[in-house]
């Protein structure tokens, strides 16, 4: 079993991992940048080490320094959290070479699934439906146009190594494709080190529904049902819920099976998420696999009662999953709202000093939080500062509780998206479960213009 774990991450997810590790009797090591020295997670860990300056390249992406600290502190494992180095196969490979357990799949799996084009091929071969689109990288505008003509506009232009919505764009015509192709290719090269681009058909009225997977090193692969994460802004999730208010029991079962096939196709181990687009007829299409713990994992924990981080640590230690398939059921409904330090109308970041932080409390309320008060929110990292998770017996009850919780969630000193979250939660279309990816554009933004 892992004895001491270094968490190569920050903020709420570092705190989340430390909590589960401590409950399992595992010692914890936090690493932090200059900007994060006052962050709660630094105090929570048994030991903490300064990584370096605030910029990510000098801190949370500094592989040499992280490995050095792991050795110095005698940590025998590293949990990468999400973002940063979590899906970096070179980092995982380095950990393997240094004999430090990487909490995630092995470097070969990370490499395969990191390339969206490669992942599409593997999934298609494994009989998992993929979004209609190119199966090879597109080199030129002409090639892209020819292909777009074949499947029909609108299409999604994507970077093979893209993520977090970067390098992804809807394209409506040949002219538009000509205008944006080279630019996006260049940006992909800049951001991800590879300009390989591909095109997918844009699915109408799509929802984003993903399946949680857990796989141990003894051949057990299980799914823990779905999360619906269709409410997004700037291609990033804002509100997630489990179960999906849309899919039928039959679709749920088919998606779960497809996700298990996906995981087995690459001999996946540890926690992972298979993301699908689902259309109005409940056809589902693989888009990508996230080879790490997800931001929105708590809603799965709330409805299944499984602590995903603990399972991750067991799997990485070579242990079996702590439960059997027949024991996993979904009970009630859980909703997560991401709290962003940003303007709720233009979605521009709002770094600054938090002067007041009052959180709602209650039996059905769970907080994952990376800040305190007073607290300086710096401009160096992602704007997500906290997550609010509520659960109820039914979706209606969960919505009601989320509404109350948001009304009692007070942050002063910076702008947050809480007004946006309240508007969405109370929206008739949200209550009806009309949660398509276009929700914000279709139902939220028009309210602001009135």
């Amino acid at each position: 079993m892992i004895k001491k774990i270094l968490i190569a991450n920050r903020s709420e997810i570092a705190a989340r991992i430390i909590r589960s590790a401590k409950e399992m009797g595992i010692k914890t090591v936090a690493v932090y940048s200059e900007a994060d020295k006052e962050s709660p997670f630094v105090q929570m860990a048994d030991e903490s080490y300064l990584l370096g300056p605030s910029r990510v390249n000098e801190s949370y992406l500094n592989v040499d320094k992280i490995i050095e600290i792991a050795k110095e502190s005698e940590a025998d494992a590293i949990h990468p959290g999400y973002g940063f180095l979590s899906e970096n196969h070179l980092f995982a490979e380095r950990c393997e070479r240094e004999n430090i357990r990487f909490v995630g799949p092995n470097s070969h799996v990370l490499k395969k699934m990191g390339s969206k084009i490669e992942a599409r091929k593997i999934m298609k071969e494994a009989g998992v439906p993929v979004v209609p689109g190119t199966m090879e990288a597109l080199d030129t505008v002409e090639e892209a146009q020819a292909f777009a003509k074949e499947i029909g506009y609108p299409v999604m232009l994507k970077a093979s190594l893209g993520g977090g919505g970067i390098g992804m764009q809807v394209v409506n015509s040949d002219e538009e494709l000509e205008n944006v192709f080279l630019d996006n290719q260049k940006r992909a090269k800049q951001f991800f080190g590879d300009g390989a681009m591909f095109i997918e058909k844009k699915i109408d009225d799509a929802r984003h529904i993903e399946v949680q997977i857990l796989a141990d090193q003894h051949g057990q692969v299980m799914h823990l049902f779905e999360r619906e994460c269709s409410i997004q802004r700037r291609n990033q999730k804002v509100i997630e819920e489990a179960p999906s208010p849309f899919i039928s029991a039959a679709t749920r079962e088919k998606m779960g099976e497809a996700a298990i096939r996906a995981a087995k196709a690459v001999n996946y181990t540890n926690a992972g998420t298979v993301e699908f687009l689902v259309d109005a007829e409940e056809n589902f299409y693989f888009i990508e696999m996230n080879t790490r713990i997800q931001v929105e994992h708590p809603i799965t924990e709330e409805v299944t009662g499984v602590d995903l981080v603990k399972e991750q640590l067991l799997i990485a230690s070579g242990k079996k999953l702590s439960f059997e398939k027949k024991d996993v059921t979904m009970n009630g409904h859980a909703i997560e709202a991401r709290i962003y330090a940003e303007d709720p109308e233009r979605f521009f970041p709002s770094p600054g000093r938090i002067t007041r932080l009052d959180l709602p409390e209650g039996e059905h309320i769970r907080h994952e939080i990376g800040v305190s008060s007073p607290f300086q929110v710096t401009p160096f990292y992602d704007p997500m500062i906290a997550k609010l998770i509520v659960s109820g017996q039914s979706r209606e009850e969960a919505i009601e509780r989320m509404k109350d919780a948001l009304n009692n969630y007070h942050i002063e000193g910076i702008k947050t998206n809480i007004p946006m979250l309240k508007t969405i939660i109370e929206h008739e279309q949200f209550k009806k479960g009309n949660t398509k990816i276009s929700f914000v554009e279709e139902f939220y933004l028009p309210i602001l213009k009135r």
Partner: protein
Amino acid sequence: MKEITASMAGSVWKVLVQEGDQVESDQDVVILESMKMEIPIAAEDDGVVKELKVQEGDFVNEGDVLITLE
């Protein structure tokens, strides 16, 4: 003389103009990067760039002068 200031803390990702350039109001002159997002900063008035107060890679706080116009 007019000043163009940073609307939020962040680092200067791109400077889009040079000293001596004629700029128009609403024209983007600097792109800041804050919280993983690119934020374009536009001139509020027409003018000629007198001085660039920042370089790409610099860190700026909200209200810091980026460019002066005349």
